C-alpha cells in the first residue's frame, strides 16, 4: 500500500521515465554491445590512451557517488575529494605498509569511506544550501593539511610510492590493460548498484526527499536515515574510486587531493547531468580530457579555457548533457518508432503494436 | 465616457497552459469595476496579465497606450498601481520606507504625498518607524493601498483587499477606498470575494468562470438578476 502510494506520487526522475515499455530487450542488447565495445577498446588504442580511459572510468565512479548525493538527495558537496583521498590513502597504506594485495584493499577502502561518510553525513544533515557548501568546502581544504600533518602514516609531503600490480601470469596482457579491465568491472558494478538503488524503493524515497521533504516525512519516510544512507553510499563510491586511482597511478601525495579535485567532481556531475547514471561517464570524460584540450587551445591560460567550457556547458545544457539531451533523444526515438509503426501497421495503428520487425 | 482601461480578447498562460481564454473587460474613467467569481476563475490572473506578470496575448489599452508589450515596471510607470494578492508589503522595511518606495519613480520629494497618506490612514503615521511585518493584517492592507497611491496612479488595481480581515476592518477599508476614489480622481479595478459589498460600491461588474467572462453589466443589473444572484453570488 505504502509502496504504491510512493510510486504513484513520486515517480523516478525524468530521465529514467522515458524508455518505452517494450524496449527492455533492446536496451539489454544495446548495453551488452556497449560493454563489448568497452572491453575491446583498450586493445585498439595506444597504451597512453588506455591509461587516460582508465582514469575516465575512475572519475565516472566518483561522479556517480556525487550524483547519488547531489542528484537524488538534493545535497551539493564541494568536499567529496576528501573521501576520494581517504580511499586512496587506505589502499596505499595497506599495500605499502602491510603488503596487502591491491584487490584486497578495495573492500576496506569502501567500508572506511562509508563509515566516514555516515559520520560526516550526520551533522551535514543540519545544513542546507550555502551552509552545507561551507562545511564541505572546509573538508576539501582540510584534506591536504590533514594528510601532511599525520605524516607517519601518510608519508607527509613526499606521499607514498606504490608498485603497479601485475596481471595474473596466465593472462597475456600488459599491466595497463589489465588495470583498465579491473576498473571497467568496478564501474559496471557501481552503475548496476546505483541503478538498483535508484529504481528500487530506496531510490524512490530519495527522490521523494529531494522533491518534497515535508510530504516525504508525512508518508513516513525516515528522512534522516535515508539522507545519511545516501551520504554514506556516495562516499563509499568515492572511496572505491580513490583506491582504484591510487592503484592505477601508483602514487599518492597530499597536493593531489586539494580543493580543485573536489570541484572537478562537482563540475563533472553538473556537466553530465546530476540526476543521471549515464551522465557520470560524460562527467568523467570532461574531467579527464577537457583540461588537456584547454591546454592545446591555449597553453598560456588553459584554466580560462576550462572555465569557459564550464560556462558554455551550463548555458547550453543547464541540466547537464544527459539531463538536457536525454528527454530530447527519447522523444525523437519515440517519434521514429511511431512513424515506423504507422508505416508497418497502416493508419489506424499508432500505439506501437504494429512494430513487428 | 471612454474607458481608461480596456482588455480585448486577452488570453493568459502559465507555462504552456492557457488559463484566460480571450476576455473583454473595461474600466471607465473615474469608475470602479469589479471582477467576481469563484476561486480559480481567473480573476487574479486577469490582474497579473494587465501588469505583465504572466505571459499574455490580446490587446490591453490603458489611457491610449498599449500595455500588452510592456514590462511590469513600465506599466507601473504609466500610472497603474497594483496591490497584489497578499498585499506585497516589504515586511523588513519600515512603514515610511514602504511608502517612499511608492514614490520611487517620481522625481522630487514625496513629503506632501506622505502627509496626505497619513491623513487618510492615521494609524500609519503612528507606526511610521515600525517594521511593516509587525503591523496587523488590516494595517498592512492600508499600507499597501497607501503605497499604491504614492505612485499617483490613474488606475488602482486591488486584489481582494478584504482577504483574511475582520468585517469591521473590511468596511473601514472600503470606505477609505470610496473616499480616495473621489478625492484622488483615480479609477479602480477590484477583485473581491465579498460580492455584496463589491456590487454596492462598483458601477460595473464582470462575472468570471474558468477563464471566461460569463456575465457582465452594471453592478446594479447583476445584483438584481435573480439567476445570477442565486447561482454565483450565493444570496
Amino acid at each position: 500500500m505504502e509502496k504504491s502510494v510512493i510510486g504513484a506520487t513520486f515517480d523516478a526522475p525524468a530521465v529514467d521515465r522515458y524508455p518505452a515499455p517494450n524496449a527492455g530487450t533492446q536496451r539489454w542488447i544495446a548495453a551488452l554491445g556497449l560493454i563489448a565495445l568497452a572491453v575491446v577498446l583498450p586493445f585498439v588504442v595506444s597504451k597512453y590512451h588506455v591509461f587516460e580511459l582508465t582514469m575516465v572510468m575512475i572519475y565516472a565512479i566518483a561522479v556517480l557517488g556525487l550524483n547519488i548525493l547531489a542528484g537524488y538527495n538534493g545535497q551539493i558537496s564541494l568536499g567529496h575529494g576528501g573521501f576520494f583521498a581517504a580511499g586512496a590513502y587506505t589502499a596505499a597504506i595497506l599495500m605499502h605498509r602491510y603488503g596487502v594485495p591491491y584487490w584486497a584493499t578495495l573492500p576496506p577502502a569502501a567500508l572506511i569511506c562509508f563509515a566516514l561518510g555516515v559520520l560526516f553525513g550526520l551533522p551535514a544533515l543540519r545544513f542546507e544550501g550555502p551552509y552545507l557548501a561551507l562545511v564541505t568546502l572546509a573538508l576539501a581544504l582540510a584534506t591536504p593539511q590533514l594528510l601532511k600533518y599525520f605524516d607517519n602514516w601518510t608519508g607527509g609531503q613526499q606521499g607514498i610510492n606504490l608498485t603497479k600490480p601485475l596481471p595474473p601470469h596466465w593472462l597475456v596482457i600488459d599491466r595497463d590493460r589489465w588495470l583498465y579491465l579491473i576498473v571497467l568491472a568496478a564501474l559496471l558494478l557501481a552503475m548496476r548498484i546505483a541503478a538498483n538503488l535508484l529504481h528500487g524503493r530506496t531510490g524512490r524515497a530519495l527522490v521523494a526527499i529531494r522533491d518534497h521533504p515535508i510530504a516525504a516525512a508525512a508518508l513516513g519516510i525516515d528522512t534522516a536515515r535515508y539522507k545519511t544512507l545516501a551520504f554514506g553510499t556516495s562516499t563509499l563510491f568515492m572511496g572505491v574510486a580513490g583506491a582504484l586511482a591510487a592503484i592505477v597511478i601508483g602514487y599518492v601525495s597530499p597536493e593531489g587531493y586539494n580543493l580543485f579535485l573536489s570541484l572537478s567532481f562537482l563540475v563533472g556531475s553538473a556537466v553530465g547531468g546530476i540526476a543521471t547514471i549515464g551522465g557520470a561517464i560524460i562527467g568523467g570524460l570532461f574531467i579527464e580530457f577537457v583540461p588537456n584540450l584547454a591546454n592545446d587551445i591555449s597553453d598560456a591560460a588553459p584554466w580560462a579555457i576550462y572555465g569557459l567550457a564550464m560556462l558554455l556547458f551550463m548555458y547550453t545544457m543547464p541540466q547537464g548533457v544527459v539531463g538536457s539531451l536525454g528527454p530530447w533523444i527519447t522523444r525523437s526515438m519515440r517519434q521514429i518508432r511511431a512513424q515506423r509503426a504507422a508505416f508497418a501497421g497502416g493508419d489506424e495503428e499508432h500505439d506501437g503494436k504494429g512494430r513487428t520487425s | 465616457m471612454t474607458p481608461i482601461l480596456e482588455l480585448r480578447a486577452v488570453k493568459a498562460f502559465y507555462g504552456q497552459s492557457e488559463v484566460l481564454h480571450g476576455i473583454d473587460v473595461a474600466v471607465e474613467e473615474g469608475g470602479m469595476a469589479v471582477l467576481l467569481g469563484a476561486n480559480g476563475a481567473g480573476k487574479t490572473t486577469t490582474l497579473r496579465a494587465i501588469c505583465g506578470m504572466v505571459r499574455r496575448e490580446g490587446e490591453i489599452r490603458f489611457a491610449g497606450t498599449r500595455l500588452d508589450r510592456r514590462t511590469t515596471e513600465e506599466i507601473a510607470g504609466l500610472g497603474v498601481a497594483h496591490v497584489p494578492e497578499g498585499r506585497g508589503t516589504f515586511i523588513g522595511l519600515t512603514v515610511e520606507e514602504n511608502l517612499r518606495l511608492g514614490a520611487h519613480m517620481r522625481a522630487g520629494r514625496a513629503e506632501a504625498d506622505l502627509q496626505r497618506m497619513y491623513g487618510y490612514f492615521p494609524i500609519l503615521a503612528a507606526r511610521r518607524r515600525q517594521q511593516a511585518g509587525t503591523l496587523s493584517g488590516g494595517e498592512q492592507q492600508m499600507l499597501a493601498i497607501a503605497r499604491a497611491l504614492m505612485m499617483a496612479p490613474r488606475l488602482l488595481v486591488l486584489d481582494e483587499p478584504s482577504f483574511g480581515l475582520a468585517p469591521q476592518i473590511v468596511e473601514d477599508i472600503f470606505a477609505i477606498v470610496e473616499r480616495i476614489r473621489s478625492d484622488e480622481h483615480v479609477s479602480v479595478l477590484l477583485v473581491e470575494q465579498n460580492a455584496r459589498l463589491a456590487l454596492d460600491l462598483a458601477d460595473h461588474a464582470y462575472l468570471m468562470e474558468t477563464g471566461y467572462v460569463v456575465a457582465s453589466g452594471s453592478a446594479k443589473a447583476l445584483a438584481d438578476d435573480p439567476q445570477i444572484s442565486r447561482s454565483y453570488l450565493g444570496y
Partner: protein
Amino acid sequence: MHELLQQIFSGLVAGAVYASLALALVMIYRATDLVNFAQGEMAMFSTYIAWTLVNAGLPFWGAFIITLLVSFLGGMAIERVVIRPIENAPVLAAVVVTIGLLLIFNSLAGWIYTYTVKDFPSPFPDRPLFGALTTTRDLGVIGVTLVMLALLFAFFRFTKTGLAMRAAAQNPDSARLCGIRVKRLLAIGWGLAAAIGAIAGILVAPILFLDPNMMSGVLVYAFAGALLGGIASPLGAVVGGLIVGVTENLVGTYLIASQLKLTVAFALIILVLVLRPNGLFGTAIVRRV
C-alpha cells in the same frame, strides 16, 4: 597580556578584510540567492588593475578611485553577460558558473601578470603605535574598512537607490509593481560587490603580497564569516568576518602549529554553526499575519 592584545589587533586587521569580502558575498546572496565563488578572484583582478595604475605612476589614492570605478563597471558587466543567462537554471549550474568564473579570472591574471609574487604599496606608513600594540598601517586598514562600511550604510539607509535595492532583494515582484527596475539594480548590486571586493584586495595586498592566488584563502574565511554572521545579514557579515579574523589568528598563535590552522579554525566555526544553524545574526524577520 600584551602579546594577546597584539594578536587580537592583527586578527582584527585580517578580520576587516574578511568582513569586506563577506559583505560583498552577502550583497550578492541577498539579491540573487547565489554564493559568488568568484568574488575573491574578481577582487584579486581588481587589485592587479590598481597595481598597474600605481606602476604607471598614478598616486595611490587616484589609482584606488579609478580601480573602484573600473571594478564597479566590471561587476555590472559580469552580471549582465555571465549571470543573467542562468537566472532560472538549477542551483548546481549557477554554482558551476561562478566556479568557472573563478578559474577564468585566476588564469587570466596568471597569463597577463605571471604567477610571480609582486610587492604592493601601502598608502599608510608602517610605524608602531600604543607601545607596539599595533601599527599605523594596521589602523589604516581598519579605518578604510570603517569608512567604507559607513558609506555603504548611508547609501542603503538614505538614498532612493539604496532603499530600492533593499526592497528588490526582499520582494522583487512587489518592487516591480512599484516601478523599480529590478534587473538594473541587480547589476548595480554586482557592481557594488565588485567594488567592495576591490577595496578588500587593495587592503590585503601589501600584507599578503600580490599573486593570482592571493584571494583564494581570503574568500574562504570571508565565506565562513558571512555564514557565521548569517548569510542574509550585512551587519552579521562584518561581525562574522572580524570574529573569523581574530579566531584564525589566535588559533594559529596559541592552539596549534600553523599547518593545521585552517582546519582547526574551520572546526570551531562549524561547531558554532551546528549550535546556531542560521548564524549569529540570522534570525527571522518579525512577522505577523
